[in-house]
């Protein structure tokens, strides 16, 4: 894979795009008034693209996946979220009081999971990325976002998400195993080797025995030995 592709992930150019939440009848006028202004300029990054997708899914598809009470809770949070976003200066000076409700996080996670199970990896990734912005201190969320990125074959992004996960929780083995595979896909053998070494180290120190992890490590070892 050439480097041009690798970097295109973080420097994607997207033309001006309108996000429309008009179809959602549940949302309040606050959301309408805010979203009508949403006009993402050109040079939108991959990150912004994912968040755009996440908002679209939540506001268009929530009824397909969530109970009525969960929808209400989600919409209340989104409304609050977007109301604050309406005025950036206000937001900077007055941080949001209290975090997003757990039920909202659960709702987003539920849809993300369903999307993952139904192999709609791009959608799942977008929702997990949104979750990382809401609970950035949760290593598990970063790890899940990384797995979704990996299955979406967004390998460079996956390595960054896994890096975040492993930084927050150094005992996790998954980020290292997945990163090793991602680096292999990116033709970065040296990096793949380093991740494999770390994964092996964690595996040896761990009392748990996961045959799938062992199988993955054997596969990695075999591939790396061939390249050595």
């Amino acid at each position, binding site marked *: 894979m050439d480097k041009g592709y690798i970097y295109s992930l973080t420097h994607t150019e997207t033309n001006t795009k309108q996000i429309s939440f008009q179809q959602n009848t549940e949302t309040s006028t606050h959301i309408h008034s805010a979203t009508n202004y*949403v006009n993402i300029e050109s040079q939108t*990054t991959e990150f912004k693209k994912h968040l755009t997708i996440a908002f679209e899914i939540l506001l268009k598809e929530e009824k397909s996946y969530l109970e009525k009470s969960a929808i209400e809770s989600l919409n209340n949070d989104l409304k609050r979220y977007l109301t604050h976003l309406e005025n*950036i200066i206000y937001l900077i000076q007055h941080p949001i009081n209290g975090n997003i409700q757990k039920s909202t996080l659960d709702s987003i996670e539920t849809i993300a*999971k369903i999307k993952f*199970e139904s192999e709609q990896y791009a959608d799942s990734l977008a929702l997990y990325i949104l979750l990382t912005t809401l609970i*950035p201190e949760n290593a598990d969320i970063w790890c899940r976002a990384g797995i979704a990125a990996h299955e979406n074959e967004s390998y460079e992004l996956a390595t960054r998400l896994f*890096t975040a996960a492993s930084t927050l929780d150094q005992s996790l083995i998954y980020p290292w195993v997945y990163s090793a595979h991602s680096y292999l896909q990116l033709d970065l053998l040296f990096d793949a080797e380093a991740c494999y070494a770390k994964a092996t180290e964690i595996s040896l120190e761990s009392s748990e025995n996961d045959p799938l992890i062992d*199988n993955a490590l054997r596969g990695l070892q075999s591939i790396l030995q061939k390249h050595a």
Partner: protein
Amino acid sequence: MEKMPLTQAAPSNLQLAKTPPPPPSLAEKCEHAYLQKYGPAKGATSPAMMQLGGALLLIGRALMAKPLAGSEQKADRKEAQRVYHSAYKTPGSINPDGSKTSFFSKTTLMNMITSITQSLTVAPKIADVGETPVEPSLKGRNSHQTIKQDFVGRNGVKRGSEELHRVDVLNRRQLSLTEKLKDLHQKQENLKAEIQPGETKKLTNLKAIEKEIHACEHDLKNCEKALKADRDHNSSNTSRDVLEKNNFAEARNNNVPGAVNFRSQTVTTSLVSGEIKTETFQRFGAIWDPRNGLLNLKELSEFASAQKSSDPMEVFEAKGKIQSRIAELNDMKKKFTSKDQLVLIDESISHLQGLLSRPPSISEAFRNVENVIADRRRFLREQLLEPIVCQMKDNAAKMYEVQNGDSKEKVFPMFHLGLLTGTENSDFQASGWAHMEHNQIGDMAQIFNELQGCKIVVTDKEHSYFGVEDNDGNAILYLSKDDIAQPAAAVGEVPVPNLQVGETVTLSTCFMNVSVQGHNVNDGMQAEINKKAIEQLFSWTVNITDDAERTEVRNTLASLRTRLEDKKESSFGLATDIAMVARQLGALSEGCLSCKDRGGTIAEMIAIKIIETNLKNEAAKSKDPDLKKDPSLVEKEHQDIAKDSHKFTQEIFDENGACVKVVIDCTGVKCAKVDYRQVPGLDKINVARNSIGLGVKFVSGGLDVVPEKS
């Protein structure tokens, strides 16, 4: 009684159907999962990859099915914020796009989400309107503006120390530009007053001054903007960040010419006698033109010069080379298709086509390209202003005198060691940031070459600057006596240059490049540059007064030439050996693209080698009668020193070491991005340990340059 049939061992088809099939093995499950997702074509290529990919699919499904880990996994919020910014490279400052009542419509979604995260942690600083966005991670790291480190031997005795000081290039640049503008305006007024109709030479000079005023004002504006945003130096990522998220054609002009990640590194050896020996070298990133990284000054100057030649053969050959470069650039359009990439490719082709227009003496297109070349030359030369001034301050003792006719001429030799990779690898980003190290080598080689013989005039002005160019593109450096004065605390420690106001010094420059990872062969443009540079180093040896020392240095240079030219060596070891001998002949500086990973490693290797050399020299020259009587004692002392050096080498990549601190200062990453296997003297266990650490380098979110493959 019925007879049992003789052949009834095999079960019937019905019996087979009723027997449950054996459960699939783990390998089969993995294979099945993989084939289900990717199909047989991809899986058939590598069974190991199929097992790995399949296992990962199953792990992912199992993990996703589990409930989300809750608060017990929550990490420190500050750490989470850092991780978040690293992963998404989100800007820390909100830019309201010109309006103080900025609403959703006037900002990007990314800024909004960033601000939410920030609001959950600490209240961010509100950026001024029009402020240049500054990476939050780069703020508040001034603890690494000065880095100190001790080298403590195995027995706990301090063998030496080092102190790295980051130079506030942009503060200096602001003062320099202000001083220069004052001078230029004065000259402009004087010329305007005395110019008479028909005095074309004076008119040309006036135009040159006005052009320079315009360029200075442009630089000063950008410089002030950067300073206002708390950025007093060009960091490793500045030229990249300038382009990102901005309109390329406009944003690239926001680059302030100033050496990147510029630091002085002072190494002190604690001799056994109790004396200390101090020397300073410099480290900075590549001197290149990020406004257009697809071309380089060397090729542009050579093409332009050849096209103006009276030799038709030379013109013909140059034409072929230019056409070949145009074809290369046209080919790039297939691979690099972002709007900004195409703008830069087309612009580069247009410049090269301009060089083909004939006759050059009257062609406007050719003249336009000459202006582009002059502008690039100026941009590169300006970046070397602070390094030259600092070298003259820190390494005054390197200045020597040569007989020039009846008078003596003072010469200041400056050597720079580039660590760039000369192969034509492309790291051409969608933003238009073209990091192609072969072009950077071309830029550096040419500007160092053009500064050979540059006149430095000592002035009583407060700040130093390059004056207006003459018609050949040469500029005089006006050196402020204040700029090279030692602070009171250092008087007596560092030799002060014995220079009087009005005195002239000639600059002598030498540039070499040794690729230390990636393409480790001394060939192509690198070999061509190094061949000339070695000759230049030989010419500097005439200034060594001690015959034995001169012979020793020349022998070392001869050996280095063999390694470069016969063995085609290009390595960390060779780079260190070259630096060690070059520092005996001139003021030394070194650096890679941004001088943090490769450059930082070499800097530490040089520091360790300097301390080792000084200690060994002391042992060899010891007046201790016991040592004199028994040479084996000296040998033992040398072995002890070498063992300590070995210990220091193992510590190069320690998280609290100077090398890594510089990386942290630039990117926040606690790891130097180096192929540790290429670093001589590093034990295997440390290669592995550091390599594991390298795995987390992507904390920087891809902030860094081309991922250096092993």
